Structures are given as C-alpha cells and as structure tokens.
C-alpha cells in the first residue's frame, strides 16, 4: 500500500468516526424524549388536600351492622370497608399482598379468590400464600359518605 493510500484510508476512517459520533449524539438526543414519553406515569395521590379520599361504591347504610362489608374504591385503587364485630368501621386496601388480586370481605374473614390467601378481620395474613398483612386505612363516615385516610405506619392499624 502506498503512503497516499494509507493517508486516504486514515482520513476515510476519521470521516466515518465523525459521522458515527454525530449519529450517536443524534440518536441519544432522540432517545431521551422517547424514554421520558414512555416512562410510567406516577399515580395521582388518592388522598386529597385534606388528606382523605371519598370511598366510591359504598354508602354508610351498607355497613351499619357488624358483619356487613363491601368492596369499593378510593382514587383509582380498590378497598374493602366493613363493620368489625367490635362495632368499629374498618377499611383495608384490597390489593392482596401475594399477587395483587383484590380480596373479598366474607363476614368472618377476608379472602382472596386467586390463590386462597386468607386474612383475619384485623387484616393479618393467617393462611395461604400472602407474605404480609393488608394495608389498613383510616376510615370515618358522615351521613352520606365514607372517607378513608392514610394511616401512619407505626400506629399499626389503630384508628
């Protein structure tokens, strides 16, 4: 190979590197907005400015007596609200801690139909695959509506 060939070879390579580098920068620049566009949207906080959320799908007179309870929702999440035998209203996020199905209130226990997970009325996992208790929510009612609010973790379910 002559010297002239070598030098054209070199400048050719330099040219390709420049083009390649510029293309990479361009691709990188395009990738950022696309990645942001595709990135998961944060869920809106179901609890409003006053720290509580209206329960949808359940009204107070559906949970009057002990043993009455129902599935409903708050924000875009599911929950169960029921009257505990001690007379207090209780609410739990209905997402099963095992595989994410919605649990059902069954009078004396809380049960998940997907894989047979069972919780007691305090939300504690007592049988089946769930690894953790359900997330308890603070709950209060007025004449027309039920409201839930986030419980501090250390209170461990005590309303």
């Amino acid at each position, binding site marked *: 190979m002559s010297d002239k060939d070598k030098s054209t070879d070199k400048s050719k390579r330099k040219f390709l590197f420049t083009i390649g580098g510029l293309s990479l920068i361009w691709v990188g620049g395009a990738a950022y907005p696309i990645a942001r566009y*595709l*990135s*998961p*949207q*944060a*869920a809106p906080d179901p609890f409003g400015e006053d720290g509580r959320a209206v329960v*949808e*799908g359940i009204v107070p007179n559906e949970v009057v007596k002990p043993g009455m309870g129902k*599935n*409903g*929702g708050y924000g*875009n*999440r*599911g*929950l*169960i609200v029921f009257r505990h035998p001690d007379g207090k209203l209780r609410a739990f996020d*209905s997402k*099963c801690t095992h*595989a*994410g*199905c*919605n*649990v*059902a*209130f069954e009078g004396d226990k809380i049960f*998940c*139909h*997907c*894989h047979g997970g069972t919780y007691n009325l305090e939300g504690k996992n007592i049988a089946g*695959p769930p*690894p953790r208790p359900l997330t308890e929510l603070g709950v209060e009612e007025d004449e027309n509506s039920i409201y839930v609010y986030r419980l501090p973790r250390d209170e461990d379910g005590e309303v």
Partner: protein
Amino acid sequence: MESLDKYPIPENAEQKLPSEDKVPGKISRMLLQRYPVWPIVDHLSEKVVPQHNHSVWYNIGGIALFFFVVQIITGVLLMIYYKPGAPWQSVQRIVMEVPFGNLIRSIHHWSANLMVLSLFIHMFSTFFMKAYRPPREGTWLTGLALLGVTLLFGFSGYLLPWDDLSFFATRVGMEEAEKAPLIGHYIGQLAKGGPDVSLDTLGRFYVLHVFVIPLVTMFIIGIHLFFVQVQGVSEPDSFRRLPKEKRKYHKFFTEFMFAEIPVWLVLAVLLVFLSAAWPRALMPEADPFAAAPEGIKPEWYFLSQFQLLKIFPGSLEFVGMMFLTLIPMLFLVTPFFDRSVPTDNRGRLVTKIGFLILLGLIVFTIWGGLS
C-alpha cells in the same frame, strides 16, 4: 432505452424453464431479463426434504406459520371493531352484534393457542432430532426468539378484552414478572405505564400486540426461513448413516409444500369446529374496585411457570425465579455445547436433560391446571 441484454438468461435456466412458446415460459424469461435472480430460483428448486420415519416433524413449523397467518387475518378483522378506548364494550359488540364476530374472535383465540402448542412441539422435535447442531445454530436461536415473542403475543392479547378474568390474570402476571431480579420492577412499571394495571396498560399492550410484536415476529420469521432455505433441512444421524441409494428425498418446491396444503385445510376446519363448539367467553367488564372472581388462571402455556413459582413461596421465591431463568438459558446454549455429529456423550446428556425439562413442563402444566 437500456437494452435487455444486460442480464442474459443463464444456460441451465434455459434448460429448466418451461418452453419459450408457452405463457409461463415467456413470463419467467421476461422476469429473468429484468431481475437476474436465477441463482436463487435454482437453489430453491434444488431444495429437498429427507424422507424417513421422523419426517412428520418437518411439517410442524409450517403448521405454526399457518396459525400465524390465521392470526394476522382474524386480528386485522378484530381491529376493525375493537376500540382501546372502550375495550370491553367493543369486544361485546363484536361478540353480540357483529355478524360472525363471535366466530372470528373465537378463531383468533383457538388459533393463538394452537400456534403456541405447535411451536412447543416444533421446538422439542427439532431439539430431540438435534437439528440445532452446527451449522444451524442461527435457525435454533431465531426459533427460540419466535417462541418468546409468541408468548408475549399471548400475554399482551389476553388483557385486551378487558374482562375481569383478563384484568386480574394480567395483574397477577405482572406482579410475578416484577419480582424478577434487577430489571423486573422497571420493566413491569414500563409495561404497565404506572404502578397498577389500568387503561394506560391496555394502551401499551394494544400497541405491542397489534403493531410492535407482529413487526418483530415477521422480521424474525423472515430470518428463520431464510436460514432454513439457505442451509436446507437438517438430517438426523440415523438418516445420514444410510447408504446413499437408500436416502430418499422430496423436493421442497413443490412436492413438500403442496403436500402440506391438505393439512392446512384440515386445520382450518378444526379451527372453525373448535370455535363453534367452544367459543371464547367474555366475562363481566373489568372492575378495578371489585373483588377478584374465582378461577383466575393464566393461559395453559403460562401454567407451568406459575406452578413453579407457587411451590417456592415467600423467601424461597428466588429459587423458582432461578429455574425460570435457567431453563431458557440452557436451550440458548445447547447448540454451543452439543456440537458433535454423530452424537456423543454430550449429545446424550443433552437429550436426557431435554427429556427431563419436557416431562417437568407437562407435569407442572397439569399440576397448575388442577390446583
């Protein structure tokens, strides 16, 4: 005007082509003068398929392709009425109002299941015939990729009717997938488009199901078939050992291909029969607030994986995950481990492991179905 002399018709083409006075002969010569692809045509016309006791397995890939074509046709038809903004209502309309809508939806369902089944059969038959050995590693790897994208097809399509069964099955499936180490959580959130399965998730699954995955699949099928055409069909050791005069072959074009057409026709009848006898049900609309219905189970082709995860609960879950990662990895490296023709000790070991995996797959699928 440029002259047509640029691409003269090759001599052996002149001998093989139909006579110049007839229409097919005229058309083929006209095309060859413009597109000099005779070497390709010649190569394909020479392609043969060996005839032996296990020849039936050569048909399964074609059968999977047939089901894929049915999926494209029925899928395009379903897209005409399906609306990702009102998923359940639009599927209900397809089922209840649109003429033959229920049939087309059910065929899409059955063809999907049979496509997955034929791909599993195709994979295990090529595995036990050791067709993955050099020089066919590329065919094996693209085949595994096709099985993978087909499972993604199944998973993404399952959510689209937006009934309570598909909603909670997808939620469980995503929950399990997110437990995968390192990237599991990120991929799960990205696929769902948020912390939970919602209509945002459906939008993503829809685009994946009707556009991205089909595009990728067709691209990989193209490569897979290209490899098969260039290298020809693999011959098992027992066939290779036969004296030359005892080795019989079919021509691929057109003997083998035409022989497959009646099989496709029978399968088409089977699809219509299955769809008419057991149409795909549409359950009540998904309600993210309601309790999950009973009988939430993934499609049968995910049952074995779920059963495997189920038997390692809690802190042992990573053991199940390890198996789920290890088994596909084993299939990926097989052609680089078992290379020898005729087969040797390594080859026999691979056969044994493959048999164990197949047995495990069947047992876990049945177990998962019953429990």
